[in-house]
Each structure stands twice: as C-alpha cells, then as structure tokens.
C-alpha cells in the first residue's frame, strides 16, 4: 500500500511553526533561576511534537537537531540543570535555526549548514557541561553573560538605537525618549548620520539616523528598556552594560562580536523576532502578551472558503431577486407568484448547499489522522529491528476537525509507545511462542453516542511490578500502598512517569502519557487502558460526539420518527409469514437466507401505540451491532439524511436504546437509535419493559 505522505507535509509544517512560536514565547517568558515547570513543560512538549513529526516525515536533520534541544529541556524539567541565561539564549538560537531548517525542508532550498553546525555545537557544549552553575568560569563567545555575575561592577548602560525608517510615522519621537533617559542618569548621545541622504532625496517623514547612547547610571535595565517599550518592534535596539573593569577595547570587541552574530541572523529572520530576541539577550524576562492557550482557529483550504463565498454570493443574488418582486399584494398576479416560487426554491437550494459546505469544513474522516502511521511504523521498525504489521479499520468514521487536530498528537504518542515498549523484539516473541511479526490495530467506530478509537497491540503488556516500583521510585505512591490493577495502569498517565530503562529518541521520556490524557480530557473524552502481561495492551479513547454527523435512515413507528444509523443497517425487507419462527412462543425469529435473526418489535420496546400489530407485510430493518444481528419491526421507511447528533444527557439523562437526538427539518426532535443498546435490551428483557419505577409523590 503506497501512501503519498507528502499531502500531510503542509499540516506538519504549519503545526511545527506553531510549535516554534510556542517555544519562543515560552523561552522569552522563562524566569531565569526560578523557572516554573509549566512553562518548561510546554516548551518541552512543543519540541517533542516537532521531533516526532519530523521523524515521521523523514526530516532526519530536523529530528536530530530537536533531540539535542529536547535533552537539554528535559534536564531543566527534571531540575538537574539550572535554567541559565546562556542555555535559554542557545535554545532561542536553536529555535531560529530550527525554523530555518523547517523552512528549507518545506521550500526545498539548501540549508546554511555552517550556522546549524555552530548552534548545534553550542547546544552540545552546554549539554556536556555539568549543571548550569559553572557558567561564570567559562569564557566563550557568549561573554555577554558575564553581566549576570557582575551586577555590582556595573556603571551604566550602552545603548545602540537604530530606528527603522518608518518609526516616526507611528508618532514616536526619539528626542522625547532621550529626555526620559537623561532623567535616569548622565546621558551621552552620539548620532550616526551616515545613512542620511541628500536633501533632495530626503523624505521628512522617515528616520535615517541612528544613535549610540551612553548612560552612566546604576538603575536596572528594566527602567532603561521601559523607555523603548513602545518602539521595540520598530527599531534595532541593543542594550549592553558598561562594566567598570572593562576597558574600551574589550567592549568594542564585544559589540563587534554581537554585530557579527546579528549579521548572520539578518539573512533569514524577520525583524520582529529579531527585535524580540535582542530584548531577551541582556538577561531580562520579557512578558509577552501572546497567550499560549490553544487557539480557537481551524485550518481550512482556500478552495472550501471560495466555495462558501460563491454560495453566499448566490444567496445574495437570490435575495435581491425576491426583493425585486414589488410587494404590492393588491396587484399580485400569477407571473409574480411564479417568480416568487422560483426564488424560494432557489433560496432553499442555496441554504442547503451552504449548510452542507459549512458542515464539510468541520468534518473529516479519521483517515486523515490514521494515514500518517504506516510510514511511522515502517521507519521505526527499521530503526528498532522489529517486525510490525499495522491494521486500521473504520477510517471513514467522521470526526470534527478540531477534535481531529487535537487527537493527532496523542495518537502518535500512543502508537509510538506501542511500537517502542509494547511489541517485543522478534527474537523475544519467538521465545514466547508468538508470531515474529507483531500487530498493532487502529480501530475507529461510533458506539453509543461516542466515537471510540482503539489502539491495540499484541506485545508484552504492562509489567505491573515494574510500574509500581517506578512509581515508588518517582515518589508518586508510597511503597506500602495497595493498588488495584486499574489504579496501577492509571499511574502511567502521571506526569514525568516513564518505564523505559533507556532513553531513546522514539519514546521513553514519560512526556507522552500525561499529554495524551490531558489532550483527550480537553476534548471532553477519556482514555482507558487494559493490559494483560504477555498478551498485549489496548488503549481505548472515547470521544463525545457532540459535533459529529451521522448518516441516518428515518423510520416511522406509530406517530414517532426515529433515526437508525445507516452504518448499522444491513438490509430492509418486507416480512413474509412463512419465514417467521417462534421459540417457546416468545422469541420470534426471522429467516434471512441462512440466518435466523430475532425480531425486535419497536412499538413494544418503546411502548408506542400502533394500529397494525401483525408481522404480516410489516417492514423489517435488519441491523447489526457488536457482531449481533436483529430485525427491527417498523411501520414505514422514510428518507435518508445526514443528521447532527445532539446529546440527550446535557439536560436529561441517558436513555436505553437511544444514543442521542437530532432536530429534523421541521424543527421537531427525533431520537437516534442506539443499535447495540437495542439488541442488548431485547435480549435481556424477555417481556417488553414498561416504565421503570413510577415514583409517586404528592404535595399539599
């Protein structure tokens, strides 16, 4: 089976660039020395996702590069490494570097490999150094960090201020800023007029000047920065400190150094991110207002949007067409009536098309999430020398787009875990009498108002003792605690828990499972795990259907309309008396070819009054659920249509045999049948079930 995975590249790049933005803003927000774990975790997760995605799509250089960053972040997260300015700077450089790498991979342009190598090297340098406390003894190109240790020696700030050409247009006045600065201390201003054009070419609204400012003061950098707060995005700003022990030559070389660095950056990074980075360099935390919350946007291809715009255009035309009919009813003749009717027909069609295309924007078959796995399994198998077969079913189960986007990463984590930890090496499998090739199954289906996604492997299963020991070791539980199996399995969803003995770049950092569960909970779903040691593990993800759409067959029982999910209907047929059989005068069976299937009389089941109660000539809808078949006796088959599933539980409660409700075209509510539930119900109740306990109460 050949799958063109390049179709998913675009999604991957978009996701990765989003991830880089999260990392960047997270890094800029880190408090040096007192970094909070949540921020580090979110940076780490972004890096982890990028790494996973790039490995899946075969961008090995990106994956390798990210792995280094991830290791560094992991140590920070575990607290084994202090968060220092230097490491944060390097990470920020790495983010830029990664962005270049990704852009190069996307546009298929060559990479500036030299620069990548330099950044990679500095990453490794940090990694090889023990902890973060000995930075002051190091003397490398990052000597600007010396400022963090030398606050007492500071005698002022050197500011290089270079406004962009259009800064003045936004109403910012350098003179005002200098005046403010001069209030902070003794200010020396040197203007650089080299960029000034001749008078004839000069645009009075543009700024051509740049300044070197020397501020002799003992105020903190925050105050200095505050002056430039409004123009940060519109200028190149560098603030460095003047250390009393530093002589002029050293300082100028330092500035020189940084300018070089800046020069290389100028090649690719846009001014805004550059400005941000420069602000971050001097060792100050910049509180960015950008929130890292999951944005409420969805990605829609331009085609679909264009189609929508077209349809809205037609709607407007139809509306004006109807509007043109002069609504003077006194002389409303037949021709106008005709036009009005035409217009309304058109309006109806437009509305339906519009509704359909809006729905289509949100819904996607789950194959979109599943299709990236064959390649991943293939690659990882080669890497790990394992033999694994991937089986998927239910790829056409439709899922809301936002749900799809959020479920993608958790699925990747789960499948990777199954490959890495679940399936054993071929040799080990042979020894335990299993086929050499392991099987991972991905199943998706609707069940009882939920979408279920199963990830099943036939690998080693969980070792309960090992999970327990690990949890004790990590301080998640105390050693004398007695836990049920479920509780033990639940431990793997705790943050920072990992049972892998060795770190690999596939999984085993314990980042996966807590993120998996969090993402699924954000969607209002849940995840369960069952495992049998030596037999395998099954993860079951249950997602609510609130937005899902279902193809339904409308059936009539008495005066009530019900909707049967089309997927569960096998066939519909007219009952012939000779095929009806009885068992013990109770259960009625109907012979369909070589099968005997029980007849479920819907009106008895649901207590509905119907005129016609005999089977003769009745309609039987043969449905299948959970591997069992049944024939539902209904009065009439109506049309088929797509229905939007609404929950009954929101305001009421679960009802047996009903998975939800929907609203029909005329605004009335129709119930959606839960075929599995109905079959179970008919099996368990030999006599039709009447109203449950009719609790009676009286007041006054």
């Amino acid at each position, binding site marked *: 089976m050949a799958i063109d995975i390049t179709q998913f590249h675009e999604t991957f790049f978009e996701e990765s660039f989003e991830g880089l933005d999260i990392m960047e803003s997270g890094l800029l927000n880190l408090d040096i020395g007192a970094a909070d774990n949540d921020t580090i975790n979110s940076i780490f997760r972004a890096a982890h996702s990028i790494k996973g995605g790039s490995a899946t799509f075969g961008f090995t250089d990106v994956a390798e590069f990210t792995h280094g960053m991830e290791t560094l972040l992991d140590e920070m997260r575990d607290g084994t490494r202090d968060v220092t300015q230097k490491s944060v700077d390097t990470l920020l450089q790495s983010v830029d570097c990664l962005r270049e790498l990704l852009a190069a991979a996307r546009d298929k342009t060559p990479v500036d490999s030299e620069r990548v190598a330099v950044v990679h090297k500095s990453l490794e340098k940090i990694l090889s150094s023990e902890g973060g406390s000995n930075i002051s003894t190091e003397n490398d190109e990052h000597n600007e960090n010396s400022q963090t240790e030398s606050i007492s020696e500071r005698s002022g700030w050197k500011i290089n201020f270079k406004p962009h050409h259009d800064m003045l247009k936004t109403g910012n006045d350098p003179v005002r800023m200098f005046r403010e600065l001069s209030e902070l201390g003794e200010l020396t201003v040197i203007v650089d007029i080299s960029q000034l054009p001749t008078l004839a070419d000069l645009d009075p609204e543009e700024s051509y000047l740049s300044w070197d400012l020397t501020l002799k003061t003992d105020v903190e950098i925050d105050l200095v920065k505050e002056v430039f707060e409004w123009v940060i995005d519109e200028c190149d700003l560098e603030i460095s400190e003047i250390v009393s022990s530093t002589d002029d030559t050293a300082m100028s070389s330092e500035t020189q150094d940084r300018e070089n660095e800046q020069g290389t950056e100028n090649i690719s990074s846009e001014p805004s991110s550059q400005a941000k980075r420069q602000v971050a360099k001097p060792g100050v935390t910049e509180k960015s207002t950008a929130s890292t919350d999951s944005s409420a946007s969805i990605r829609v291809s331009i085609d679909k949007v264009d189609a929508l715009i077209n349809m809205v255009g037609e709607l407007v035309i139809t509306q004006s067409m109807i509007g043109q009919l002069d609504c003077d009813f006194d002389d409303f003749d037949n021709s106008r009536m005709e036009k009005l009717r035409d217009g309304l027909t058109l309006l109806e069609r437009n509305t339906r098309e519009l509704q359909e295309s809006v729905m289509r924007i949100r819904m996607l078959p789950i194959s979109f999430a599943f299709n990236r796995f064959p390649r991943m399994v293939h690659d990882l198998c080669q890497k790990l020398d394992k033999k694994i077969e991937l089986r998927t079913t239910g790829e056409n189960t439709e899922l809301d787009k936002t749900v799809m986007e959020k479920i993608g990463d958790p699925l990747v984590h789960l499948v990777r875990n199954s490959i890495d930890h679940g399936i054993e090496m071929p040799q080990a499998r042979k020894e335990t009498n299993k086929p050499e090739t392991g099987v991972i199954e991905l199943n998706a289906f609707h069940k009882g108002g939920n979408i279920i996604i199963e990830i099943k492997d036939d690998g080693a299963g969980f070792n309960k003792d090992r999970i327990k020991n690990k949890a004790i070791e990590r301080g998640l539980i105390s050693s004398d605690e007695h836990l049920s199996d479920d509780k033990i399995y639940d431990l793997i969803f705790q943050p920072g828990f990992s049972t892998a003995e060795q770190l690999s770049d596939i999984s085993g950092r314990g980042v996966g499972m807590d993120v998996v569960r969090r993402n699924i909970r954000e969607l209002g779903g849940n995840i369960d795990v069952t495992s049998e040691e030596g037999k395998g593990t099954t993860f079951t993800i249950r997602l609510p259907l609130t937005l899902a759409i279902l193809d339904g067959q409308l059936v009539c029982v008495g005066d009530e309309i019900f909707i049967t999910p089309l997927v569960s209907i096998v066939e519909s047929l007219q009952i012939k008396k000779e095929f009806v059989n009885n068992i013990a005068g109770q259960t009625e069976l109907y012979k369909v070819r070589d099968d005997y299937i029980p007849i479920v009389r819907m009106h008895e089941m649901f207590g509905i009054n119907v005129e016609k109660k005999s089977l003769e000539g009745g309609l039987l809808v043969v449905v299948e659920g959970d591997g069992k078949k049944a024939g539902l006796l209904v009065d009439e088959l109506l049309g088929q249509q797509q229905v939007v599933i609404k929950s*009954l539980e*929101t305001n009421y409660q679960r*009802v047996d045999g009903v998975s939800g409700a929907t609203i029909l075209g005329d605004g009335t509510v129709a119930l959606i049948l839960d075929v599995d539930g109905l079959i179970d119900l008919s099996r368990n109740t030999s006599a039709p079930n009447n109203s449950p306990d009719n609790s009676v109460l009286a007041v006054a």
Partner: protein
Amino acid sequence: MSEPQLIDSNTSVDVMTDTDQYLTFILAGEEYGVDILRVQEIKGWDSVTSIPNTPDYIKGVINLRGTIVPIVDLRDRFSLDAIPYGATTVVIVLKVTSDNGNRTMGIVVDAVSDVYNVATEEMKPPPDFGTISIDYVKGLATVEEKMVIVLEIDKLLNSAVIDHTDTLLQ
C-alpha cells in the same frame, strides 16, 4: 397569560430590602411559585417528542433553539388528575442546578399567574404534612390573603431525572 404578564407586573420594589421575586403559576386551583431568576422563558404548549421507557410525567423533549430540553408535566409529577391541555397551558423553561452541572428543563402547568415580591422573613416553613413529602417545598408565602407554595425546583426536577446509566447497556 404569558410574557406580557411578566412585564406588566408590579416589579417596582426597593431592591435593597431582603425580598425575592417569585413567578407563580396555577396547578389544579393552587398557586405555586418558583424563583424568578431561574425562569428562562415561558412558552405555549407545543407537541413534544416522547422518550421511550420513561415515567409518565416526562412528557418528552422539545427543540429549544437547537437544544434538546426535557418537559415534565407537574400534574403527573404530583399525581393530580390530568386535564386536556388548553389555551392557557404553558411550559415554563427553568434552569436547574445539580451536582453534575446545570440543566435546562421545562414544566407544564395549567397557567401562569403573577409575579410577587416576598420578603424572606414572610416565608413560612412548610408544616409537617405527615405522610406527604415536603422535600420539594421551600416554604409557604401569603400574598394578598392567598397561600403560595414555593417550590424547591432543583430537588423536584433532579428527582425527575433518575440516573440509570449503569443499566443493561454497560
């Protein structure tokens, strides 16, 4: 007897005093009250979609602008004799709070009556009815010489929803 009644009624009361406003309705000749802040809307009786295998007092569900809202017939709930729904029959849509969050539910009553201000201290605790459940009565208020039974709608309507999630299907 619907929305206009609400608007016209005497609502000019000093909000600082410790009074609550109650919407009252008629059920078999008695006047009952519910906290007006819980009332979402009042609408005329319209047909419902019945839900199978539910107690008789659950009339069914309606589509309230895209939300599925269950409807409880209070006459059935209180085991009063059923009367045919007429011109004054209304559905009062209420917000109900429970442990599992908020629900929106509707009650069918004979007619809406009025809006009263009742000072907290004027509310009398319900007398001990002996055999009859008083769990669903918050108190009794006297307004213009008449008795108004103020209902505890959270208890009343949540008890109408008996959670049998763990039945045959699971």
